[in-house]
């Protein structure tokens, strides 16, 4: 992990070198502030479910929602129950981008959610373009674990109501640290590679409120990783590797746990003139060192694949996703596996706003995830 800290220090030192350049440049370059934002209003409920409270081992009620229940957003504990609710997934954000000069800028993004009324500083970073290929960013950013992680809040940027929770669901989504990005073109092929290092800690983990009662604090230390994205014409392929030392503590539940995390992923997207295919497969592995699962290894492959077609303002999209949890010690850890098929219909109201409606059929394979459920959702997404 020493090299991670090394990278982080190097980026910090690099950013310090930028500051005199920035201040010097302020005199000659016009400064400007640009505000932009996004909003997604999502309403939904479970239409029917075979949930059996006697056999299903999910904590019930789940974070205040009586099961049958469907976890749409693990990271923010967004759970749908039998009644319509805007709370699980609705969100809005505002971003301020201050351009210092051609090379340097400062960006801050505040997000407020239906699951948490307090605005959260999701992004806050300084960015510096070293040259035409290299860019360094220091501050608070999103962990680039999945293809859609960086823009999972921006409903208008994807065809589903939300990215598949089978993949996009972690106890932490952001980090504080630094990243370095490289971009180049080889003929008609565009290449972007980045590396990052940092840490994250949460006093109250919403994710863990779906697992334990009481308040769980979590920390991901020595976090680091790299990704490579290659685009040629209709094809985009991205590979990623992320590693971290994780810990979770919940005194009231008697939890004091540490684990080493490794995550690998590959995403392949094909965007033809009207047809498009989105696919992503990941494998995460937690090696528990202390706590209730000490000395066991949890391996969780997950996959999503979907296809859609642009028909003027309409975009129908079909998707299949599965999360397959495994352990090498069933005596101490109960895996949680589920799969889901969804149908989404998107309608573009104008170039900056869209409405979507989605029907999900979720299968609770291990009978500890709230039951098989059919979920109905409708959303309004807008950027400004």
């Amino acid at each position, binding site marked *: 992990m020493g090299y991670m800290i090394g990278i982080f220090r190097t980026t910090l030192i690099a950013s310090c070198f930028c500051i005199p350049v920035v201040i010097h440049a302020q005199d000659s370059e016009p400064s400007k502030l640009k505000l*932009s934002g*996004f909003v997604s209003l999502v309403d939904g409920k479970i239409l029917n479910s075979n949930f059996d409270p006697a056999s299903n081992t999910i904590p019930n009620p789940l974070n205040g929602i009586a099961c049958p229940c469907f976890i749409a957003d693990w990271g923010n504990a967004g759970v749908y129950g039998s009644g319509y609710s805007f709370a699980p997934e609705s969100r809005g*954000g505002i*971003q301020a981008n201050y351009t210092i000069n051609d090379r340097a800028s400062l*960006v801050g*993004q505040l997000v407020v959610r239906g699951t948490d009324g307090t605005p959260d500083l999701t*992004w806050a*970073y300084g*960015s510096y*373009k070293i040259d*035409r290929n290299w860019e360094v*960013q220091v501050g608070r*950013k*999103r962990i680039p674990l999945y293809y859609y992680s*960086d*823009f999972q*809040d*921006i409903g*208008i*940027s*994807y065809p589903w109501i939300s990215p598949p929770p089978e993949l996009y669901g972690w106890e932490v989504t952001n980090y504080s640290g630094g990243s370095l*990005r490289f*971009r*180049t*073109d080889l003929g*008609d092929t*565009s290449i*972007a590679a980045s590396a990052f290092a940092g840490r994250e800690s949460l006093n109250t983990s919403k994710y863990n409120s779906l697992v334990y009662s009481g308040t769980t604090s979590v920390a991901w230390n020595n976090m680091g990783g790299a990704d490579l994205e290659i*685009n040629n*014409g209709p094809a985009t392929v991205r590979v990623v590797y992320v590693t971290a030392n994780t810990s979770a503590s919940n005194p009231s539940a008697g939890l004091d746990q540490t684990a080493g995390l490794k995550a690998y992923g590959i995403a392949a997207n094909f965007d033809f*003139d009207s047809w498009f295919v989105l696919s992503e497969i990941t494998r995460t592995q937690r090696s528990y060192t202390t706590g209730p699962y000490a000395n066991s290894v949890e391996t969780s492959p997950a996959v999503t694949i979907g296809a859609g077609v*642009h028909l*003027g*303002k309409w975009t129908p999209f079909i998707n299949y996703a599965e999360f397959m949890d495994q352990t090498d010690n069933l005596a101490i850890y109960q895996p949680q596996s589920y799969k889901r098929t969804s149908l989404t219909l998107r309608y*573009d109201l*104008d*170039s*900056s706003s*869209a409405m979507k409606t989605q029907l999900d059929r979720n299968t609770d394979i291990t009978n500890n995830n709230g039951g098989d459920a059919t979920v109905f959702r409708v959303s309004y997404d807008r*950027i400004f």
Partner: protein
Amino acid sequence: MKKLHSIASVIFLLGISHVAQAQIAIVASQKSTANAITAEQASALFLGKSDQLPGGGSALLLDLPESSPARDTFYSKVTGKSQSQVKASWARLVFSGKGTPPKELPNSAEVKRLVAANPNLIGYVEKGAVDGSVKVLLSVE
């Protein structure tokens, strides 16, 4: 019969003027190191997949207003995308610190004025608006 003929002529002329409007030129400064650009390269630039000018240097992009027919023609012919798809692509980049969308200018005259002065700028205008102040990198018929 005469009436029908004149209606046909009007339709034909409208057709012609429509075709004339639909011609777009991708332009850069006369001082730009780029001399030509392929439709694929232009598409990658205006969808934010690349930020590199073919001749070297970082590209800074200029757009016409959404209400402009030239903008519609440019994106549908060069990128094959609707305005919604283009906005969705840029939204991903803007809200994750990976790119800055093209700067929107009121008309072709403004695009030409800025492009002429800065070799890193690249824009598109109606073909009829092209003059000696700018270099045509690609004609889109």
